[in-house]
């Protein structure tokens, strides 16, 4: 803007007039408002820091011995002699575990239910509607407790329900068969994961290459071959052994029942998982339904006119387009699910929040613990958002 702040002053003007002119200046006003706000903020800040210094700060207590055991540990071995950092880390793994599985299952459920909500079949439609209305309006916490109670109603292990020798259901949990391996199992899984990423990168590179040069044989085939090759080579290189592990229940020398083998879904983990999946599933259902309904009707009509059957119509025409508007709200639901996993504190599934609370109860230092919790959840949210963002960009790329 042309006239500068101070040149509009004439020397003979009184202070009062100068001040008046100053306050009428647009730029000064903006500065002044933010200045006052800033002062207020600074005062608040000093007050908070002053009070905070009276509290126990610092994370040193996390290096000392934890002194408590955890009912669920996964991937790492943890016992009460490890440091509190380890216990926290175990908690984080538990959170990731239930959140990851929850996200996958909830999405599948949500997509199916979303399609069911739009179905012409009266029964299926009403079942889906009933599902959404019932589950959505009940607090998640109530549902978690409900599932836990339900699972605890399963018979005592001595009279456990077995299904064809493959699965054992009791109030200690649900045992499922699993493919297990020798000690190199996790390493091999890691290599498989890397191999998948390598193959996918290879695939996209090959596609780009294919555009500029003479026809290559299918990049899909080449990358698939690469992946399979990596799998097989590493399998033998690590002398992997895979076996189908079937759960068993035996009585040991003291007369207690021991479960062995297989993969156990404890009542706590299962309760949190089921509740999260069903609850988040309702929101995903509505998101899927909403974005399919917002597609122009002409799409369905054109697909039907082309003679595509229901399945083709949905997978080739409807879903890909609906994906564009699904991803942002879906990301939001994933973040909600991850944060909601903190409710497992109510039934003693040791997610990161519950472990933090135990540490807080044992060693105080509430504020640093809380900052740690905040940072952890923010990081998890960030990771999920980033991944979904990449997917979003791929999906909304014109001509993808």
């Amino acid at each position: 803007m042309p006239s500068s702040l101070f040149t509009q002053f004439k020397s003979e003007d009184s202070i009062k007039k100068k001040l008046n002119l100053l306050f009428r200046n647009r730029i000064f006003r903006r500065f002044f408002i933010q200045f006052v706000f800033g002062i207020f903020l600074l005062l608040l800040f000093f007050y908070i820091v002053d009070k905070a210094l009276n509290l126990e700060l610092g994370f040193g207590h996390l290096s000392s011995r934890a002194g408590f055991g955890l009912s669920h540990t996964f991937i790492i071995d943890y016992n009460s002699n490890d440091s509190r950092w380890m216990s926290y880390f175990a908690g984080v793994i538990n959170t990731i575990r239930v959140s990851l599985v929850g996200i996958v299952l909830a999405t599948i459920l949500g997509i199916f239910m979303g399609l069911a909500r739009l179905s012409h079949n009266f029964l299926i439609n009403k079942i889906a509607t009933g599902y959404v209305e019932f589950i959505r309006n009940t607090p998640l916490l109530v549902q978690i407790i409900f599932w836990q109670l339900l699972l605890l109603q399963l018979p005592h292990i001595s009279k456990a329900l077995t299904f064809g020798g493959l699965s054992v259901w009791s109030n200690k949990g649900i045992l499922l068969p699993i493919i297990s391996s020798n000690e190199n199992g996790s390493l091999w899984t890691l290599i498989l994961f890397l191999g998948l990423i390598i193959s996918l990168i290879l695939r996209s590179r090959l596609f780009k290459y294919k555009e500029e040069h003479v026809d290559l044989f299918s990049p899909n085939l080449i990358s698939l071959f690469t992946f399979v090759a990596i799998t097989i080579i590493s399998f033998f290189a690590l002398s992997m052994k895979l076996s189908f592990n079937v759960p068993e229940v035996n009585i040991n020398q003291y007369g207690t029942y021991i479960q062995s083998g297989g993969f156990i879904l404890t009542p706590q983990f299962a309760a949190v998982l089921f509740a999260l999946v069903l609850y988040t599933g309702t929101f995903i259902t509505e998101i899927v339904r909403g974005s399919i309904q917002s597609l122009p009707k002409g799409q369905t009509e054109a697909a039907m006119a082309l003679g595509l059957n229901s399945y083709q119509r949905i997978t080739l025409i409807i879903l890909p387009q609906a994906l564009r508007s699904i991803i942002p709200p879906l990301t939001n639901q994933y973040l909600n699910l991850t944060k909601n996993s903190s409710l497992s504190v109510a039934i003693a599934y040791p997610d990161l929040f519950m472990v933090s609370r135990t540490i807080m109860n044992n060693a105080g230092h509430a504020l640093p613990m809380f900052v740690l919790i905040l940072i952890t959840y923010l990081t998890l949210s960030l990771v999920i958002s980033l991944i979904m963002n990449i997917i979003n960009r791929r999906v909304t790329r014109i001509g993808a």
Partner: protein
Amino acid sequence: MMILLNWVRENFFGSKLDVILSIVGAFFIYFILSTVISFIINSDWTLILVNRQLMLTGLMPEEEIWRVWTIFSLTVILMTTSVAFWFNINIKGSIFYILLLLMPFLIFTTKNTLLYVLLIMILSIVFFYLGYRSKNSGLKNIVSRVIVISWIILLPICFLILNILDGPKMTLWGGFMINLILAAIAIFAGFPLGILLALGRASSYKLIKLISTLYIEVIRGAPLVAWLLLAWFVLPKFLPNLFGLSDLNIVVRAMIVLSLFASAYIAEVIRGGLQSIPRGQEEASFALGMNSISTTIFIVLPQAIKIVIPTVVSTFIAIFKDTSLVFILAITDLLRIGRLIPEQQQAFFGKSIESLCVVALLFWIVSLVLSQISRNIEKKLNI
């Protein structure tokens, strides 16, 4: 008859897949229904009868219950009047609402309070009728204003009634009542705060925008239980020593945290609304000579809020459901009581699922009513 058959055929047996789905669906419904019905029939529901008061009002002493009844009656009467006045209800709708209101009464009345309950029901019907009639009469504007003002002063009056004449300590408040009160406070306090935050985040003043964004993202970054725990451990240390603020009881601290938490989510919803208002609206207002504040209050905000009402109401419902999380602060809300009854009362030992079902039902009814209201408002605004 033919029409019915055709409809059945189309909707149940449209294609081969449909047939399979219908059969599977039928089995599924049969399975669920039979389990649920047999459960309902075979369970002992006396636990509700015995613990009615406990579930509704927590540990409130018997002699103070009249306060709760007063608040309840006032709220019910105000609600029926509002519904009659503002909503276009046909016979079907009226019956639905009346039945819905009857249910809690039926469950929770005792012989002593029967007269009281009948009085409330009669008063509600009277006010319903009055509201309905005044909708088209000349008193419309006055009645409208009276109703709005009544709603605004309802919450303070409830507090007054609860505390007047040496009322019971706040820590004795419990049960469903406290879920409702916490939700009401969180919404009443969170809504204006949310508006300010949304305006702040959309503002062109960089500092204000930064702080608002920071606040919103940090609050949304952690789960509610974590923030509530903060209220327990950390908040007392930060409160100033004046006015005895540092000794705030846990219920008030929970209210503070819930309000701050709600404001962040409400802010995001309103921000969505603000963003969808075309710039031309602001420009027209400025061209007419109105300043920023007037433009925001009279032009931008009303339109933004109107657009996002459905989402805002579903946020309110979520806040209400989130009040169950105060168990972590040892506040005896409905859910906590529902869990404790089977553990602490000999007679109902092991009846956890029945207890939980009642809890779920109460939450469910309120959420359902709120979402019905939201749908009604949506329909009304689209006219």
